[in-house]
């Protein structure tokens, strides 16, 4: 399984902070996104937003980054701390 977490405005738009998906056929962050959109068609326009950032196991990564079973994948809007 792969744990997926969402934050801030994205978490509110999806009305979801965390879920798990099967790791079958998942190789990259982009695959995770695609799988989420297949499972929830209404998420497609939200997750398709180009400005979203992604992280795997707490490291900021690009969508090409590999994902393996047991990983934690996060999606969130550009950060606004400081």
């Amino acid at each position: 399984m792969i744990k997926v977490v969402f934050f801030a405005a994205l978490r509110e738009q999806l009305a979801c902070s965390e879920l798990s998906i099967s790791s079958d056929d998942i190789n990259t962050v982009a695959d995770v996104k695609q799988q989420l959109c297949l499972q929830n068609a209404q998420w497609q326009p939200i997750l398709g937003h180009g400005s979203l950032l992604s992280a795997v196991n707490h490291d900021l990564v690009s969508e090409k980054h590999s994902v393996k079973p047991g990983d934690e994948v996060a999606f969130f809007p550009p950060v606004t701390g400081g």
Partner: protein
Amino acid sequence: MSIDTKRHIHEMSRLEISVQDTDFSLADEVALLERDNATDGAVVTFTGRVREHNNGHSVRSLTLEHYPGMTEKSLAKIITEARKRWSIGRVKVIHRIGELTIGEQIVFVGVTSQHRHDAFAANEFIMDYLKVAAPFWKKEGVNQDGVCSEQWLEAKMSDSTKATRWR
């Protein structure tokens, strides 16, 4: 990397980084940076506070959300990078989370070094990267024409430009 080295780095990060909902004291933080530290002649500190106005509207409060675990890891990476670039002594980064009101302190970065240049540069570098890489998000409570509402802040292009200039 040996287990001892990893443990040492973890221990250092724990001392250097604090993500907290409570306020902090600038005087206490400076005292900690200076205590038993006779080698460093420079102490540079930055404190960020909640502004009354943002993009022309009046702000009532600010709520900060973060990604526990990744926040600490990303701040540790930024400090490690700063140590590679400059000869610095002690570092402390504090970031508050939860609900804050006007004038409250949000963020603190303190850096010491033998001479001022390293502490000045490293402090600004840490702040610039924190702005674009540490997973914090601000939600503003605003009052527009007597109507109160909440909205997530948009990331500023100027912040990513400031961070890229260090590359």
